[in-house]
């Protein structure tokens, strides 16, 4: 049993850390304030091959290891969660292609994503189907060699800036067969009939565009279908197994960033003639925060290790990591604001932003209620 990272992972952690400390941290408050997508950070990540981390060298990437991606997302999230989403969504949007694409589809679409010339997005959620993804209404109807897609998607992270999107749509004809008969398609933003609706105003992750998407008689070549017709729902669930540890990594990074801030502040801030870090009330809060973070880290890295070793239990280990790490991020950021006191509540310090950003990790890629459901189903149905 060996909990140490390998040399590649240590190097990537150090590189990402140093780069983010110098270039991303100073930008984080502006990105939050303006709510604009940070194209400069995207270029920075592309130039340093950070966007190539989710991809294997065969398709122009530099790694492809789930754990290595977790490390990179964690490091970026310590400084700016919005920026970490550029990498996370690059991975999320390309995962369906990676998992279900033909070699030709991979060769065509993955290298530009790995180089960071193009951005990816993942379009599953609809206004009427969130946690219950099987109830989607977007429809793809086959006409000869093309599918014509009509419908809309909502809450699509990066949907307004993406070049390549994987869109899930029903391919059944009568429209009332849940979960089955959903298929996945690679859609390019230049295809006629692709429209971006309004961008949402959000509590946090404000520089990460959350878009509504509309498809109006959007014609997609049949060659862009991922896998067979009707395999889309299964694919969507497999993607989530792979992407949830990434949300756990984000949450872990947020919690660590907030903890470091609170610890620094507690050692500097003097009240009653000594640093507040010398009061047991503060010490024990910090000890609990650090312990929760260690537990979250253990589950998150274990999920990454399980993915990299292709263990059969990845679904439940991914859900456990996502659930625990995101709940930890919420608790730790709330405590960090508390340790900073009145200053923590001000926009002048990053604590309140971290707390706002933490909230989304309990919600997206399956709410934590869905994670509990996934875990309970696994535990209550095995060893019957």
């Amino acid at each position: 049993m060996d909990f140490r990272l390998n040399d590649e992972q240590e190097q990537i952690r150090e590189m990402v850390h140093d780069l983010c400390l110098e270039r991303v941290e100073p930008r984080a408050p502006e990105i939050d304030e303006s709510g604009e997508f940070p194209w400069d950070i995207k270029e920075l990540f592309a130039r340093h091959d950070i966007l190539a981390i989710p991809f294997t060298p065969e398709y122009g990437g530099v790694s492809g290891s789930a754990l290595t991606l977790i490390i990179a997302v964690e490091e970026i999230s310590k400084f700016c969660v919005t920026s970490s989403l550029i990498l996370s969504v690059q991975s999320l949007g390309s995962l369906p292609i990676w998992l279900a694409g033909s070699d030709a589809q991979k060769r065509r679409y993955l290298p530009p994503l790995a180089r960071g010339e193009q951005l990816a997005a993942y379009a599953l959620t609809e206004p009427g189907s969130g946690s219950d993804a099987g109830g989607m209404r977007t429809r793809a109807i086959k006409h000869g060699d093309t599918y014509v897609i009509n419908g809309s998607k909502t809450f699509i992270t990066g949907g307004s800036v993406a070049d390549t999107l994987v869109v899930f749509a029903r391919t059944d004809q009568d429209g009332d067969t849940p979960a089955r008969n959903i298929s996945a398609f690679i859609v390019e933003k230049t295809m006629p009939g692709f429209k971006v609706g309004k961008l949402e105003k959000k509590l946090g992750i404000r520089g990460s565009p959350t878009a509504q998407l509309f498809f109006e008689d959007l014609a997609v070549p049949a060659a862009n279908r991922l896998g067979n017709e009707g395999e889309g729902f299964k694919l969507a669930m497999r993607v989530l197994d792979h992407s949830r540890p990434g949300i756990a990594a984000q949450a872990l990074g947020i919690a660590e960033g907030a903890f470091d801030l609170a610890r620094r502040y507690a050692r500097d801030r003097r009240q009653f003639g000594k640093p507040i870090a010398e009061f047991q009330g503060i010490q024990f809060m910090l000890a609990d925060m650090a312990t929760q973070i260690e537990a979250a880290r253990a589950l998150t890295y274990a999920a990454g290790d399980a993915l990299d070793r292709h263990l059969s239990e990845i679904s439940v280990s991914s859900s456990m990591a996502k659930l625990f790490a995101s709940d930890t991020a919420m608790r730790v950021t709330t405590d960090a604001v508390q340790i900073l006191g009145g200053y923590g509540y001000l926009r002048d310090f990053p604590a309140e932003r971290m707390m706002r950003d933490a909230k989304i990790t309990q919600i997206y890629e399956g709410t934590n209620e869905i994670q509990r459901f996934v875990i309970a189903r696994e535990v209550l149905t095995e060893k019957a």
Partner: protein
Amino acid sequence: MDLSLSPEQQEIRQLVRDFAEREVKPRAAAIDHTDEFPRDLIAKAAQLGLLGMLVPEAYGGAGLDHVAFAIFVEEVARYSASTAGILDVHGSVGTEPIVLFGDDEQKRRWLPDLANGKTIAAFALTEPEAGSDAAHLKTTAARLDGGYVLNGSKIFITNAGEAKRYLVMATMNPASGADGITAFVVGGDNPGLRVGPKFKKMGLNGSAIAEVHLENCTVDEPDRLGEEGQGFKIAMRALDSGRIGISAQAVGLAQGALDDAVAYAKERKQFGKPIAELQTIQNKIADMTVKVRAARWMTWKAAALCDAGQPFTKDASMAKLFATDAAMDITLDALQVFGGYGYLEDYPMARRVRDAKACQIYEGTNQVQRAVIARELMPA
């Protein structure tokens, strides 16, 4: 990173799991009800070579690592936390300091019988007025011709009365605090060592916990472990790795409670269906599962760091804090899943709640763990 168990660790897990299911499970309720020390189980564990897990093969032990030790304690604790506690104290804080700090002569003298179970070990640090503040213990050691004489009282000593080897911490200079403390190995048959009556406790019934009085107790020079003044360091090192054992005990308690809750939820029908189909029960089961998994990883991580010769004080304290708090939460939740039946002593749920409480207290209260963690996070 490779979080798989080695073939040897998997083998130990299977061996101990079989032992625990076959021998410990059927005895667990009776051990709790009678509060009798389970000598039969300890003897059976000894036959399987489980009493000398951390003792090198050269001294008759199994020479296994701390991950294997944690697995061993967890598997026993799934059914009987008190039996696990007896074995843990013996193998960890009772024996390991001799492995780490003894000279070759001492190792040859003591370790083989500790490893084969002829001798049970105990660890005597805590005193009535020196609990968390162990550096201010009052038991004295004065130099005599060729040895020492010990005087004082120890309290909360696990395995007291059953043990034949007591690792006793005493001060040679109360004014110098931690620097005055020296460690001694005292035989259970030493006429100067007297064990008080077994305490009646909330839980961990079956494990013998009592006062140990040292009354003009003389020991020879070769019975001193380490150098004079090294005792506090020896005790702290023992507790660091002892905390891995307590974490494992808590993980076992929690896993056992979870397993029973899952089985019961699938069986128990209300409103025309198994309560496992109710979302509120599912949520409890999910949260319990996540916590026990996180606690196990933290325990194994501290153990793996210890085995790799890396610093592990902070990780051991975090594992102890997290795992024992998790065990308390999980045993209470599991009892709740059983409803009224959980409150009855006919089922193991109430026993686990009583046992879990001890884990939050001994080998350093969880408040002490937080202080250790805070110190590690913010060195002066």
